């Protein structure tokens, strides 16, 4: 049943998340009226152009082990929301919690709980091998020596990159770099994964294997996944629920899978409503 996450409900009806232990372990991601405005210019504050509102009173709750989709057109605010949850961007308004830690107040705790695979495929050291890259990032999350090597081999195996582990990342295809980004998000074994278009550049077979991996991580390891995607079929196939984001606002949260064409039809209706 669709849940309307009404932006106008923020001020009056959305209560502060419950902080009991049960709630903390059940609700892995919560946002309360989160807004994000990008100022006209960064620093120094010289006026150039106009401010952009990327998120507008976004209120969501995602349970442990849930795969939650963010669908919407380009510029809808999907990546911005993921970056806010990963502490890379500070929200302009509202509050957000990941694994019980507030994004603004306990960014260190949030970073321990989150693995982000962003769509930025440059984000590796291209002269180093895939294994060396992951060993570096493992070091940043406190893993070293044999445990780090074991963990790196494990996550490389999960994304089917073990045969290419010793090759420099410069020789990887776009799809391989995307899978390496997922492996990097997993290297610290965080309970929450934020995936930004993880199958964007993959061929259908590789995309299917990533989708299967996401399902497996949620089902078998209890990972909570927030998945930003343009691909409605992917959202249908992988997500338990999905929020339709349009111009920074959550228009609707749908339980998935919907009957044939349900998500696509509703999505088109909402896009039509936008026009």
């Amino acid at each position, binding site marked *: 049943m669709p849940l309307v996450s009404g932006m106008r409900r923020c001020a009056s009806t959305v209560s502060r998340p419950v902080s009991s232990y049960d709630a903390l372990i059940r609700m892995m991601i919560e946002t309360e009226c989160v807004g994000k405005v*990008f*100022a006209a210019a*960064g*620093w120094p504050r010289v006026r150039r152009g106009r401010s952009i509102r990327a998120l507008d009173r976004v209120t969501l709750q995602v349970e442990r082990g849930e795969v939650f989709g963010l669908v919407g057109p380009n510029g809808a605010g999907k990546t911005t929301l993921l*970056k806010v949850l*990963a*502490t*890379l*961007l*500070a929200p*302009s308004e509202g509050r957000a919690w990941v694994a019980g830690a507030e994004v603004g107040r306990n960014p*260190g705790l949030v*970073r*321990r709980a*989150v693995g*982000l695979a*962003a769509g*930025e495929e*440059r*984000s*590796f*050291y291209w*002269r*180093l091998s895939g294994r*060396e890259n992951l*060993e*570096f*990032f*493992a*070091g*940043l*999350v*406190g*893993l*070293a020596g044999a445990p780090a090597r074991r963990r790196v081999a494990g996550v490389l195996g999960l994304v089917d990159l073990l045969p290419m582990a010793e090759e*420099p990342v410069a020789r990887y295809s776009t799809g391989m770099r995307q899978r390496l980004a997922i492996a*990097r998000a997993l290297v*610290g074994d965080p309970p929450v994964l934020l995936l930004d278009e993880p199958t964007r550049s993959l061929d259908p077979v590789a995309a299917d294997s990533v989708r299967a991996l996401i399902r497996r991580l949620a089902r078998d390891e209890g990972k909570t996944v927030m998945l930003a995607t343009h691909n409605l079929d992917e959202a249908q196939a992988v997500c338990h629920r999905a929020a339709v984001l349009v111009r920074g606002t959550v228009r609707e949260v749908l339980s998935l899978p919907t009957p044939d064409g349900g998500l696509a039809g509703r999505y088109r209706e909402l896009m039509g409503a936008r026009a």
Partner: protein
Amino acid sequence: MSGAMWAFLRRDYRLARTARLALAWQIVSVACTVPTMYYLGRLLRPPAPVLGASGGDYFAFVSVGVACLGLCSAGMGACAAAVRQEQMGGTLDVLLLSPAPVWALAAGASLWTMLVAAGQTGLYLVFAAIAFHLDFSRANVAGAAAALVLTMGVCAALGVLSASLVLLLRRPDVLTSLVTSASVLLAGVFYPTRVLPSALQRAAELLPLTHALRALRLALLRGDGVAALGTELRALLLFVLVLSPVALVAGRVALAEARRSGIPAG
């Protein structure tokens, strides 16, 4: 040393292994610079009286100057260069996402550059001593160490300031270039500050490298101890005390602004 710093060190060593030619070139540049300075020094024999106070001839004077300048430039620019490189490479986001504290990230990202610069400086002075008889027999180790520690403290503070500007402006490091250029001109790297016009001599006193060079030359070439270096060490300490809090505040502001405006994406 934190795990994050080891991770950076290992990463940068591995990256350096893939660019061995660059490392070899740094050694060659030392091998070329030392004789250049030595033969330039032979032109200036006997040494001008104005060099006398520093405790050596022109070769000794300029060797300490160039070695110290190299170390200070690396100290000031390492962190900013690392930030810029990560910005350009698209990896800054990922680093800031790690749970490692920001100080460990900043120190770790600068560590390899600092070690290479320290190695290069050591090689420079050892080569000058062995091949060209640069005389360190009177060197006062405690005085030199005190001057070096304070100088590195000033450089670290300036480095954090430079890195903050790079983070905010997404431009190459301007502050290090500015301070280095001003130091080359005024601080007494290639000639004593006393040959400058009086207005420039006064301006030179505002540069940390002026005091660092004076202290290091007096300690290494004349054998002055900590007590005799009091004036210069106090000046360096003042720079540390003034610049460190400014750098910390600048770092915090830059990070907060970056997280507000999404600058780290590069």
